[in-house]
């Protein structure tokens, strides 16, 4: 256990403890604020000098979770955890809560599983039946969201369903840069086709916009593997011929998606980036989802250049850390990662508050509707929760585009700050999905307290929203209603 990482983490938790000490300037916290002048009181979130919502998170969520993890009132139940991933950010978090490690065959309460294990547990053949005090970190058919082809299929169906029902969300408008009409509010995925199935549809679209660039991605792979760009139909044909040849039998079996390449990305400091945001889904029906405030921008290390000679330089186009790591200029101190808070500060400072708020609102919107699109087909088992890594690209008109969703976002830490962030992420996930006493229990109503949210913001809770609506219509009072969709970012 004495890897360098462990000591780092030790230092960090110490630093946290240190930072969260009470200020010694005033007598007590209460009198301290009592004497503060009023001009600061309107933004209550910033009033805490220790910065509960600060970057390294001295946060109440984390420490609160730690306290409950010990299991007050549940002394008899020693919680067994099991993990397929031997990551210190996971194990440290579990052990901090006083859990002990067990095997998958033993009686576990909390399983941080790989997707395959999860599928096995839920398969009919396994005959495994989970009891009420067990939780697992995936939904059995998460691939409805995380496979690129299925995600697009689900979103297309979701839009059609809304349109058929005459829902105003599905309103369309004339557009000049995609085929025919485009959805006004639900146009957040670049035009995409599945190959080889939709080949003819793709060719039709391609002919309409012969100058655009397309990006090919294998449906089942992640971390940038097997991705390439196409700006000539002949290149696709050539690829297709080769794929059918005897040398690449594996490609022939695989399906690909081909999407319109976002060729006008927002550049910062002249560099291209994408956003990695963490979204926690505690339940799909009703939908309960949370957005982690500390997402980050992943920067390309090489300057962005659309010239054709650069088309084959994947470092320019792909921002995946696993791709960038092999580039010559990867920096191990920051790993090309820049916080979303800094992005917001920069955009507010240089473009204004209104457009910045609109962008972040649009991002929340995009996430909620991508989740709604898959909610009907997801097996929403009460034992499950899942943390998704959302990859989003922002174009230079400050419109966000959903690129893909990862059901097993990397928990490997590339930098010290990355480690702190991921440790915090896991800690906050645990405190949101576990009942207040820290013992997994599917009978819990899954309504975490504000403290338990830590750095998560509520994106949507359909159950709470429905209750509010019912209450509002019966009492017809305008009492403070729990926001159905929060989009507080800072």
């Amino acid at each position, binding site marked *: 256990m004495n890897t360098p990482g462990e000591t780092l983490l030790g230092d960090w938790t*110490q630093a946290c403890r240190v930072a969260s000490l*009470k*200020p010694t300037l005033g007598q007590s916290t209460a009198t301290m604020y009592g004497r503060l*002048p009023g001009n600061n009181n309107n933004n209550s979130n910033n009033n805490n*000098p220790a910065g509960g919502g600060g970057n390294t998170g001295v946060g109440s969520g984390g420490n609160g979770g730690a306290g409950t993890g010990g299991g007050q009132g549940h002394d008899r139940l020693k919680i067994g955890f099991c993990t397929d991933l031997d990551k210190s950010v996971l194990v440290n978090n579990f052990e901090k809560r006083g859990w002990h490690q067990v095997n998958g065959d033993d009686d576990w309460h909390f399983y941080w599983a790989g997707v395959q294990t999860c599928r096995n547990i839920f398969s009919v053949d396994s005959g495994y039946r989970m009891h009420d005090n067990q939780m697992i970190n995936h939904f059995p058919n998460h691939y409805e969201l995380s496979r690129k082809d299925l995600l697009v299929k689900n979103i297309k169906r979701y839009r059609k369903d809304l349109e058929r029902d005459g829902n105003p969300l599905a309103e369309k408008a004339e557009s000049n840069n995609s085929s025919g009409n485009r959805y006004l509010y639900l146009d957040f995925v670049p035009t995409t086709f599945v190959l080889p199935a939709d080949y003819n549809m793709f060719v039709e679209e391609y002919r309409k916009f012969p100058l655009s660039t397309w990006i090919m991605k294998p449906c089942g792979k992640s971390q940038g593997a097997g991705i390439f760009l196409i700006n000539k139909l002949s290149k696709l044909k050539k690829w297709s011929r080769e794929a059918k040849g005897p040398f690449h039998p594996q490609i022939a079996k695989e399906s690909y998606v081909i999407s319109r390449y976002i060729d006008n990305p927002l550049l910062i400091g002249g560099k291209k980036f994408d956003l990695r945001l963490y979204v926690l889904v505690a339940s799909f029906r009703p939908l309960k989802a949370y957005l982690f405030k500390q997402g980050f921008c992943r920067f390309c290390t090489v*300057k962005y250049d659309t010239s054709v000679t650069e088309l084959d330089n994947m470092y320019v186009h792909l921002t995946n850390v696993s791709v960038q790591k092999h580039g010559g200029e990867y*920096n191990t101190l920051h790993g090309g990662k820049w916080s979303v808070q*800094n992005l917001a*500060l920069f955009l507010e400072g240089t473009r204004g*508050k209104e457009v910045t708020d609109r962008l972040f609102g649009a991002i929340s919107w995009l996430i909620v509707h991508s989740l709604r699109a898959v909610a009907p087909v997801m097996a929403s088992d009460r034992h499950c929760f899942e943390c998704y890594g959302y990859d989003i690209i922002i174009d230079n008109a400050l419109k966000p585009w959903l690129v893909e969703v990862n059901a097993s976002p990397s928990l490997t830490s590339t930098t010290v700050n990355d480690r702190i962030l991921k440790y915090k992420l896991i800690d906050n996930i645990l405190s949101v999905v576990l009942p207040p006493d820290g013992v997994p229990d599917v009978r819990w109503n899954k309504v975490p307290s504000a403290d338990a949210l830590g750095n998560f913001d509520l994106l949507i809770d359909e159950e709470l929203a429905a209750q509010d609506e019912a209450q509002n219509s019966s009492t017809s009072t305008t009492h403070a209603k729990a926001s159905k969709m929060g989009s507080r970012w800072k």
Partner: protein
Amino acid sequence: MEELQDASIHHMTARVISAIKTTKCYEPIYKELQRLACSPNVDPIDMRNTLEEAIKGAGLETEIRNIVYNLVRSRLCKPEATKQLSKTTLSDPLGYLKRAGVLWDRRVRKSLNAMCSELKVPLHGQPRISADREDFMAKWNELSNYSMDLANYRPVYAPKDLLEVLLSLKGPAKTTESTDQIPQWEFSHIALPVKNLFELRAHFADLLRSDGYLGVPDLTTQCQRILEGRHAPMCQHFLKKGCTPAPYRGALWAAVLDSKLHDYDIEHWQKLRNTVWTTDHIVDKLVFKDIQLTASNDDQYFVFEDVLYQVLLCFSRDTDIGSCVDYEAFPVKGRTYEGPPSGVVPFHGICMFAAPFCYLYDSPVNLYYTFRAFYIRYCHRLTTINTHPQGIVSLCLLFEKLLQTYEPQLWSHFRELQIQPLRVVFKWLMRAFSGHLPPDQLLILWDLILGFDSLEILPLFAIIILSFRKESLMQVASLDNIEAILADLSSIKVLPLVQLALSRD
């Protein structure tokens, strides 16, 4: 008495008028005035009143007021400097400090010269060979891709070098005291006047006021109206609140620092850029090296690497800087050394003074002028030894006195450990916390610097942090552990902490 005041006003007016004529904005304003004087609204019979009306109507009055305001703030407040030079003698109690300032500057330049001769490059630069020039111009917007060998270059000096010099400053020993009563490791004996907490409270009193402006409760609206009014003093006053809305910060700072872009500024920038393109200077290497060592590795600023190359390269060529910055003058024998065109020898971390501006301005030109003005007004005092009440020596002294008076426990703790408290905070002071506080908080701190026109917030804030983490500091007994406790400032919130410290009974 009134006569005296009258006379001084006339004296001042004369100085303002002569100073105005030397500014770049004089010519365009003069032309505009001529144009107004010929306009039909101006009546030759009632010249005075009608011209005044016309000036007000054209918005020229605010502009002239702002120019006067800035002249009085910067150039006209140091009248005695030149006069005193003649009578600087051994009797000047601060003579040794001024001497140290001159020597420090000389030492820095000498080491730059030594680097030049060691590497066999001329200090005054050489024309770029055409291939290099082409390459440089082509990569101007992505200088991180411009490759050069920097293995033999190292920063000329770092904060700790300046700290060592400061700590070794020796005043004239007072004969009445025995020498062992003066601690070896503090410099409270330096006879510079610094404020105490009471005076600081008075100075920062506006920070504790919650009055609204213009009867508008909403900060954004207030800010918009102030910017529309264009009065520099109003803009400065607004920054005192410490809650500047991010979208208006860039405009407010430019108004306070008088760095709004004029046509001649853009021309000047292009000229500087061309000089960088055509000549190869040793400071270029030092600038590249510094950015690579600091901003490029900083997770808050690395994305702006390429902007910073442009800004700091042009900065190194800007001879206007040398004429605006006032260095200590004291007759010291010995050789003098040539410096870079700007007069500023890049040191380890200089780019961190420019980096925070990347969050305010998207274009390098805008960024450049506000950064330059900020550097001239504030930053250079942090890297030179000088007797200015806001120079690094005074700030260090202020820090020590505040710590001793208001955190005696910490003071004795440090003393027992034989650790100079200044060692722990010096890098914060010298970089004005840039790279130490996260950008959103740093910009608030710098709002206060600009708003109260004072660097005294830096030592005050350093004390506040030590005080805030006192409990932990009291528990450790080594420099490493102390530094570990103070390493991470990401959870520190500037405004509530400063307000708290100032409002404490």
